[in-house]
């Protein structure tokens, strides 16, 4: 599913990964001085619209990912209402004997929406960027040494293998009569027993892959050609202009209404 989205050829998929990565940083910087809930709300709506219409991601799939994060965001509101640094004066209603103040709800809302915004902008990046393209772009445009770039790719391939192996180890241990771990002490003991075979396997695998890569003439240097160049295209220009207008516009609105 993820791979399918990453290369479905919509607008965002065609934008240079380096630019997209940079845009994630811009969002974070832009949001630092923002404390009202309206700016992150507006931004969040814009982001989700971008992901759905310019990234071709199905809304159902997107919201399914966002649900657990929404709980996380809601916890900000809760914390700000229950443990505010300064309890606001505009009391809306009481939960039991605890007053709920508008100011605290708004701060919580702002923080919660902000976290959701960061998450959805990261999703915009992750859901529309092929790992291989990201790696190539980082090497070609950001001076990342190929040694690390290709090393990261090799490691990325192993992630699903690790999960599989972890399941097998657990299964094998249960057969030995270990049963499900109960309590913290048991869990620590279990993780120790799982980690050793997992590490042993990982080191062996890493060594083999390294040998295989070197046998194919890889020496980690920049002295290599690229079959797939990750280009800068008009789409990057459009995306850049869009980002500029978005932030300029938001700043203008904020200057007028908020401050």
């Amino acid at each position, binding site marked *: 599913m993820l*791979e399918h989205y990453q290369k479905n050829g919509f607008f965002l998929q065609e934008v240079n990964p380096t630019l997209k990565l940079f845009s994630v940083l811009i969002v974070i910087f832009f949001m630092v001085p923002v404390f009202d809930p309206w700016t992150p709300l507006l931004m969040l709506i814009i982001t989700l619209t971008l992901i759905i219409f310019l990234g071709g991601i199905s809304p159902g799939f997107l919201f399914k990912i966002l649900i657990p994060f929404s709980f996380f965001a809601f916890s900000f509101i809760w914390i700000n209402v229950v443990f505010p640094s300064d309890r606001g004066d505009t009391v809306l209603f009481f939960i039991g004997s605890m007053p709920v103040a508008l100011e605290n709800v708004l701060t919580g809302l702002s923080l919660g929406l902000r976290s959701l915004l960061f998450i959805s902008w990261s999703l915009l990046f992750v859901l529309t960027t092929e*790992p*291989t393209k990201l790696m190539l772009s980082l090497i070609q445009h950001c001076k990342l040494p190929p040694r690390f770039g*290709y090393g990261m*790719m*090799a490691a*990325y*391939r192993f992630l*699903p*293998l690790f999960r599989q*192996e972890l399941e*097998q*180890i657990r*299964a*094998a*241990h*249960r*057969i*030995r*009569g*270990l*049963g499900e771990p109960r309590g913290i002490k048991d869990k620590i003991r279990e993780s120790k*027993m799982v980690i*050793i*075979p997992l590490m*042993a*396997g990982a080191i062996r*695998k890493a060594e*083999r*892959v*390294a*040998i*295989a*890569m*070197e*046998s*194919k*003439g*890889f*020496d980690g240097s920049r*002295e*290599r*050609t*690229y*079959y*797939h160049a990750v280009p800068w295209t008009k789409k990057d220009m459009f995306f850049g202009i869009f980002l500029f207008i978005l932030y300029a516009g938001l700043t203008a609105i904020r200057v007028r209404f908020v401050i």
Partner: protein
Amino acid sequence: MSYLNIHNLTVSYPFQRKKVLNGIDLQIDKGEKLLILGPSGGGKSTLALTLNGIIPKSIDANLSGTVTINGKQPLKMNFREASERVGILFQDPDTQFCMLTVEDEIVFGLENQCLTKEEIEKRLENSLELTGLTKWRMAQIKDLSGGMKQKLGLACLIAMDPEILILDEPTANLDPASTEEMFQLFTDISRQLNKTLIFIEHKLDDLLQHMNRTIVIGGDGTIMADGHPRDVFRHHYWEIKNQGIWIPQICKAAKTAEENGQVWSKFPLSIEEFKSEFISSPKVQRDQSQAIHALQGSGEQQMPLLQVENLSFSYNDHKVLNNVNFSILPGEFAALIGPNGAGKSTLSKLFLRFLKPESGRISFFNREIGDLKSRDLMQKVGYVFQNPEHQFICDTVEQELAYGFKILGWGEDKWKERLKELLHQFRLTDHRHHNPFSLSQGQKRRLSVATMLTNDQQLLILDEPTFGQDHINTKVMMELLKTLNQKGKTILMITHDMELVAEYANKVILLNEGSVAYEGDVTTLFKQKELLGASSMKVPISYTLNRLTREMEGVI
């Protein structure tokens, strides 16, 4: 001057006294098809990695003597130059790639060689074509089967166009159907490209006739024999056999015939050659017929230890098991076979209760699997996983074995004797204080089986017991299982090695496309060519040979 010259090459690893290679002298010309044999740990893979300079550049080793390829030493080449001369296909399909798609992986090597985009495009298409992977150009590597991955490995090498291709046990982890496909590919490639091919020992009965030279490296790291496979297997047969080195089935049969008076003008390397010269003699001994023992008769109304009835299971909407029925009776040595994707691993997950049957039932000792407590099940059934390391939970071999006893609440006086017995039986006494992870592959495998017998379990289920094991460890392991079976243990092994099935099993269950296609004795199955073909299984060569000798005798 030959293309590849090795002079007085000696290699040893740090902290190891033993010389892995000891004074090797070897000249190899362009276009030779070479087979290297030797016991495990006998320096075959070391030799391969020395040829492209990985040893000693990346793997620390003490090396003396010289290697030159086309007049240049690998030691003085950078990795790119080495990759233009020597390409290696490794054994494990999962750990020789670093990219995500087929195209990217092939391109990776070509980019390392600093080729232009046009050249890369040309070579990429050409190698995809040669290996039949054109349709999979954009496929994710993780979605490919083991056989396809090895094809991709080969495609990468062909694209890089080295003069020497080294194939280091490339089919050791593949099922029979994929193995055969790979062999076909190797033969085609060697014919079309006329590269120098160096094969490192594995079961290559079918390829033998295409080899024109065999080198045997002994346990001491020296060259024991060097020559045409006909001469090597004819004149050095016993030396090779005594080293525990794999010998092609055809040569075994030919040698046996020779001892019984057969005179070969041309020592056979293929069934055709065998057939054309073989004259049966009444003295011919058949050790095969006694290996395939008939089922222990009598057995009326024996209670099955394992019974599977009308079992079905699906993942999502995909039916993996469809109305599966079979049973394992006490004393049987059964093999569960079938092509990849036939449902073998799903079945074993159901045995282990990691999955619940959709319908139907599985019973052990006449009790439904769902009703048994984990503890009861554990005491009666031993299950050995494919990777022995996964099962280890203690710091020493002894503790590992004692763990099972302790969990049952036995006192030390009660299990001390039994522990000693197990250590002895599985040849682990000398290693009792070692960490399980520091054992050799064969020892690890034996320990993992031993841990499953601590409670005198009656039924032992083994998932690919010889996976990743070399010839001699396989032999030791299987003989052990045979002894256990003769002492009354019931064994069910999941395997795709048909030679093992022919030699050891007395019952076989063939699973194909989610249902049992055959259940019964081994010889009857081998006669059903169509059934085997339909499930991508293959009659082992030893059986074919055996049939042949008998038929010939029948004629005369």
